[in-house]
């Protein structure tokens, strides 16, 4: 039982993490480990400053709290502080993965599953190097606060991820396929998905030519759409950049038209997957937030601190990459809503353009960037030859108005070996996705 320091706000987030990593590299076992970690982040607030302490010494948590409290100045009115008043008080236990916890599956069964994917890679002699991973992670978080919050919840994922490097001629090509699920039994018998990706990569590797730089109309696949939504507008919705900045408050007024009238971007922690955050790391309950609706700015993402600073409601977006860090405003699952066209209809209208199928990475500030992994010319309304592209870029606020087509189905994704980076906190698991979209005026290099 924690004794919270008098006249200070305190919360504690205890994270218990179970992780499995099995790596078969070039068809030889390289890593096979189970890791169980437990750590806590303590936050103390005196109305002026926050004080954070990260510790793995859970048995001495009280001592850590008491030591950290010595840095703060006791404030008898702390519970009248607007930030403290804003904190939700939630009391709930939500352990949805307890019965299907990946820690209950033996490591030998996981290794056998991974081995079932090895023969597929061996079918391709052009693959010069390969890494086949089995990864899983079960996380249980317990957040308790001096204001009365006491929530315990869990999240998990497991995946088979295949990385390969092939070479035909002088130019190497990196390819990958992730099979990312919530439950272990969903990972079996998906070898055909890996095989199809290998075939596509081989074709790309042998046929891709350098792109002619220029400005093009592009069709983005759902995974690229997801990264585009995350990078182009998601980061701009993180409200910490607005705190104390009158120019940005004026620029980002709710109700401003920021995109084409068909554009809807949703941010929610309620979807199972990498962005599943039923309670954020301050104990705020997750919810569905429209950040753009019909092209109009309708919301933004908040921690308690930013919600108070901007006099807006909590959204459940205070997240930390691990117990070693304090929560900051981050995305959960961000996606663009579907439209009513098909992929073929989006492409059919384009005489010369580019289809971006897969990406290596993206980034977003005023200018967003996406580095494609696989891209193809569109000629006369059809997908044509593969092209090598360093990066596609565009001005966010201009590009959002240039989206004029949305396919009729949303797909959601997660990156098991990566995630979102913001300042020092990387990689944070996030979900992202959307439909195929058509965007004009993209700068391609």
């Amino acid at each position, binding site marked *: 039982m924690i004794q919270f320091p008098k006249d200070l706000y305190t919360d504690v987030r205890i994270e218990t993490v179970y992780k499995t990593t099995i790596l078969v590299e070039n068809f030889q076992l390289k890593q096979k480990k189970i890791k169980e970690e437990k750590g806590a982040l303590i936050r103390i607030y005196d109305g002026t400053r*926050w004080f954070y302490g990260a510790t793995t010494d859970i048995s001495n948590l009280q001592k850590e709290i008491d030591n950290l409290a010595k840095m703060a100045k006791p404030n008898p009115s702390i519970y009248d502080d607007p930030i403290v008043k804003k904190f939700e008080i939630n009391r709930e236990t939500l352990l949805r993965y307890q019965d299907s916890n990946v820690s209950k599956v033996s490591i030998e069964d996981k290794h056998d599953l991974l081995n079932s994917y090895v023969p597929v890679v061996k079918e391709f002699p052009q693959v*010069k190097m390969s890494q086949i991973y089995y990864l899983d992670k079960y996380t249980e978080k317990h957040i308790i606060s001096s204001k009365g919050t006491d929530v315990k919840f869990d999240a998990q994922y497991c995946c088979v991820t295949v990385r390969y490097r092939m*070479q035909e001629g002088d130019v*190497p090509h990196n390819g990958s396929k992730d099979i990312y699920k919530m439950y272990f039994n969903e990972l079996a018998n998906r070898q055909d998905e890996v095989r199809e990706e290998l075939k596509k990569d081989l074709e790309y590797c042998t046929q891709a030519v350098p792109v002619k730089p220029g400005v093009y109309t592009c069709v983005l696949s759902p995974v690229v759409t997801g990264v585009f939504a995350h990078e182009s507008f998601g980061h701009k919705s993180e409200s910490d950049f607005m705190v104390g900045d009158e120019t940005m408050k004026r620029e980002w007024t709710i109700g401003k038209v920021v995109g084409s009238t068909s554009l809807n971007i949703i941010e929610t922690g309620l979807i199972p997957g990498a962005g599943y955050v039923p309670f954020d790391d301050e104990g705020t309950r997750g919810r569905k937030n429209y950040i753009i609706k019909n092209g109009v700015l309708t919301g933004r993402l908040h921690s308690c601190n930013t919600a108070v600073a901007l006099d807006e409601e909590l959204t459940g977006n205070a997240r930390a990459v691990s117990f070693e860090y304090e929560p900051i405003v981050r995305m959960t699952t961000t996606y663009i809503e579907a439209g009513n066209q098909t992929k073929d209809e989006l492409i059919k209208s384009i005489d010369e353009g580019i289809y971006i199928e897969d990406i290596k990475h993206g980034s977003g500030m005023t200018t967003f960037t996406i580095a494609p992994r696989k891209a193809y010319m569109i000629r006369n309304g059809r997908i044509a030859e593969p092209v090598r592209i*360093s*990066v596609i870029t565009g001005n966010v606020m201009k590009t959002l108005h240039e989206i004029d087509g949305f396919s009729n189905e949303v797909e959601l994704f997660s990156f098991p070996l990566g995630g979102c980076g913001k*300042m020092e906190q990387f990689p944070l698991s996030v979900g992202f996705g959307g439909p195929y979209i058509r965007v004009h005026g993209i700068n391609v290099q």
Partner: protein
Amino acid sequence: MIRELYQKTVRETSINITNCAIDSVRKKSIMKSGCRVYDNGFIGVAGTFGEPTEKTWAEAEERLKDQIPYPFEPEKNRKRVRDLRQLNISDEEFIKEMEDLLKTLNSEYPDFIFSHKINICESEISLKNDAGLDYVNYDKTIEYVLLVKHRDSINIIDSGLIRQGRTLQKKEFIEDARMFLDAFRNEVSLPQQGKIPVIVEPGMLLSKINESLNGEQIGFGTSLFCNKINTKVFNSDLHIIQDRTEEKYHTPFFDTEGVTQKDDVYYLVRNGVIEKAYTDKMNAKRFSMPLTGSASGDYDEVPSLSSADLSIVPGKKTLKELINGGPAILVIMASGGDYTSSGDFASPVQMAYLTDGEKIIGKLPEFNISGNLYEIFGDDFIGMSCDRAFMGEKALVVKMNVNY
């Protein structure tokens, strides 16, 4: 059976700055221990937070049954301690000094908003085994990473003020800040489009070389440099080393297998000739390559080869001499760029200044840079400065295509 312990301890005091003021202080002290056991050509590894217990060692021994091959002798009978720590300041003094720094910046530059972090980080990395290996590397740095936004700007971030060092360097940081922030107010145009000298963070452009010098990739025939070992493909003045010297912060003098090199450097590219690939023990043996001591991996992983700590060897010229009177572009923020698989690089440049190598002249509008790997480090390579003109760092200067 040989037991080996790989430990990393990080102690950190981190100040967070929001809207020009310190809003939080974070303290961290985390020890991570990796227990390794070697037996009959196999390795078993297990990790834990804090000091390992007999249970951790038992788990490492248990993992031997997985028969992960490691047909090499661990390093033996070597001892070295390298202590690079110089900074000695209490948390209270650190906070006071940084409050004073912010007070100076806020009073002199009220039209800017400063945010993000200033950290003091102390690391202790050790590798010890019961065959007489005893290596410890200590380091302690201060890292200033202040994000800058003009109050009238609609960008999330306009620029950054960055410096890292083993002494406080508050005065130097403020001097840099004055130079950059004064120049920020002076908007200038690109001197020309086309190829012009660009000063750029080396890691961004070295990424393709780092990937392509990987011994495993060269050995398996899947690198741009497969057929280029012992071939001159770059500028005669370009020398690239694997760098474990004091120039690198928090980089131990040994790799995760305990391999070291004379003077903590290993030449991979000399006079523009690709001499060697970087290797760990496994790949050096597999492909009959020299062992360069480039194994990496997390504290609880089997050592493996991923990337190396590369540096370009500085020349004898200062930045001003390299630029030779002409204007150059100093890139501050270039986020999101990349190479294609064949070595064509492109990136937007979100923030850059015009400089003569000594003074910062003015702020440039956003533009794009591009170039090919063999040109950037070939005919377009101008040099690596011997001085630290800006932000306490030596500067890489290359010609790149610049256009709006």
